[in-house]
């Protein structure tokens, strides 16, 4: 792929991201009349829209980075943040907190704390169960992730039957993912810091990430330390996903689709793939949030996770049909 073409694609992604970011700030809907407007918001709305725009960009970038790291470290083009059981673990944590709050009468600690604890426990369990010779093994890790995710899913269903309908509704709407317009003061700097560190690490060690695609013997021989690199990738992907799930709930398909789109645009080398995937993920989530603002169902807004899945799913299938070779590593 020529450098000129790659630069053109990168410029197109950046322009697309700026475009959807500006739209996210401009687009609004009057809560009383339901009318759609496209104008610079007044002071009372500005901080909400800017928060949602920045949060959407960071969450999309974080999920895309997590997906890129997972696809490289697990040598599996279908790997995505959900494969580590993080989303299900976070969901079980939230559901457990709601249930305990319901039966004890103690106020729930909110969504974030139980989501982070649940996600963290799931990641640690998957990493422990997926080890072989002391280091994460791709196949064992995927199997462990699928099993942990399924068990957490079963736990969530069980607890949903034990809480009142109102709490169940709140949980279901969280479980589909929503970009918040109000966040604790420290949330965005924390997420931004993790994403920035993750991107910097992934670009700095892009050679090692490329080497992870090789067989184990060749990777060891060239000094790529595949075991340690894989562990760092999984921990980083787990942390990125845990924080995003705690902030927004699970948002599907971003971590799966973004690396594939970026791979088509800039090729498989991680030095360019990582920043391109992060930009694609940010564009996808902010764009989906813009669409969410624009679509009025009459009875409340769509969760953004529904849109990313509805758009991302068919797009991924199109990629798969158009060129199966490209939906690989």
């Amino acid at each position, binding site marked *: *792929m020529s450098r000129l073409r790659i630069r053109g694609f990168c410029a197109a992604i950046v322009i697309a991201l700026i475009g959807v970011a500006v739209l996210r700030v401009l687009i609004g809907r009057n809560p009383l009349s339901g009318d759609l407007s496209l104008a610079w918001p007044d002071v009372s709305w500005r901080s909400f829209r800017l928060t949602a725009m920045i949060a959407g960009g960071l969450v999309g970038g974080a999920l895309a980075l997590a997906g890129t790291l997972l696809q490289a470290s697990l040598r599996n083009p279908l790997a995505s943040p959900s494969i580590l059981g993080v989303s299900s673990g976070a969901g079980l944590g939230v559901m457990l907190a709601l249930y305990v709050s319901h039966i004890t009468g103690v106020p729930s600690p909110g969504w974030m704390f139980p989501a982070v604890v649940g996600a963290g426990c799931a990641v640690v369990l998957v990493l422990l169960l997926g080890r072989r010779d002391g280091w994460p093994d791709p196949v064992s890790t995927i199997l462990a992730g699928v099993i942990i995710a399924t068990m957490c899913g079963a736990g969530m269903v069980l607890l949903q039957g034990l809480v009142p309908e109102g709490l169940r509704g709140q949980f279901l709407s969280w479980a589909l993912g929503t970009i918040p317009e109000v966040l604790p003061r420290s949330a965005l700097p924390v997420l931004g810091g993790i994403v920035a560190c993750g991107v910097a690490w992934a670009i700095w060690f892009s050679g090692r990430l490329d080497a992870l*695609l*090789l067989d184990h013997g*060749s990777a060891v*021989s*060239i*000094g790529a330390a595949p075991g340690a690199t894989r562990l760092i990738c999984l921990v980083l992907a787990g942390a990125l996903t845990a924080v995003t799930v705690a902030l927004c709930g699970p948002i599907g398909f971003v971590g799966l689709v973004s690396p594939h789109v970026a*791979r088509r645009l800039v090729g*498989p080398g991680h030095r360019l793939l990582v920043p391109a995937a992060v930009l694609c993920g940010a564009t996808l989530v902010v764009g989906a949030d813009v669409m969410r603002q624009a679509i009025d169902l009459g009875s409340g807004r769509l969760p953004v996770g529904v849109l990313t899945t509805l758009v991302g799913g068919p797009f991924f299938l199109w990629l798969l049909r158009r060129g199966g070779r490209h939906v690989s*590593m």
Partner: protein
Amino acid sequence: MFRCDRLAIRRGTFQLGPLSASVEAGQVVVVIGPNASGKSTLLGMAAGVLPSSEGMVQINGQPLAKCDLASRAAMLAYLPQQPARDLELSVERLVSLGRLRLSSSPELIEEAIEEFELSEIRHRAVSTLSAGQAQRVHLARIWAQRDAESILVLDEPTAPLDPRWADRVWSLLARHAQNGGVVLVSVHDIAVAADVGDQAWLLANGSLVAAGPAGDVVQPDRLAAVFGAQFEWVVRRNGSAWLVNSGPSAEKADSVHSVDGSR
């Protein structure tokens, strides 16, 4: 000097070793033996890719396991029996990965690409290449990684290659050894092993049956006992001796001219 010191591993019911052997610089060592005798396992342990349950590998008296990653990459390059082929990475990128932990050297990468005639396909994804082309790319990656004294550990490097490229690779490996390097290579073709090896290690059921000069180890009677097949020396038209497998019984020997096991 490259030395395997009481290397051993147990995998299920299979036990390899403990075995000890050493190689001096400037030699090509062929590792031969029947299927499942432990050739690939031995090479994996020798390259430090497969952890041994006991023993150690030493390079110039220094345990390989205690070397840092960059030193290891500089001292030893390894090609597995089935290197990854389903890679979207370009040929050029894969070759350049040989220098991942070493000083960046565009000249060495270019030399490797030229040596293995990959210039015309340098921008193609490895997954689009034939098995033979992909093997040449991996060999070029090894070539870019090595320096003059490197130890090359190669598991059946010529298996997917056509005769012209197989000959070319054996010449390159011989040249590397002549320049002070070491080549430790497994090969199934006994005639080739006898032809290219300075030393030979003969494995059977996880044990090192014989190790020494290739001319001493690669002998029909010894091979017959290990492989359960007959081997004989034949004289080619150019006068050189060539070891051939004359089949499971000695009856076919009538059709070839025996030189009584001597070369």
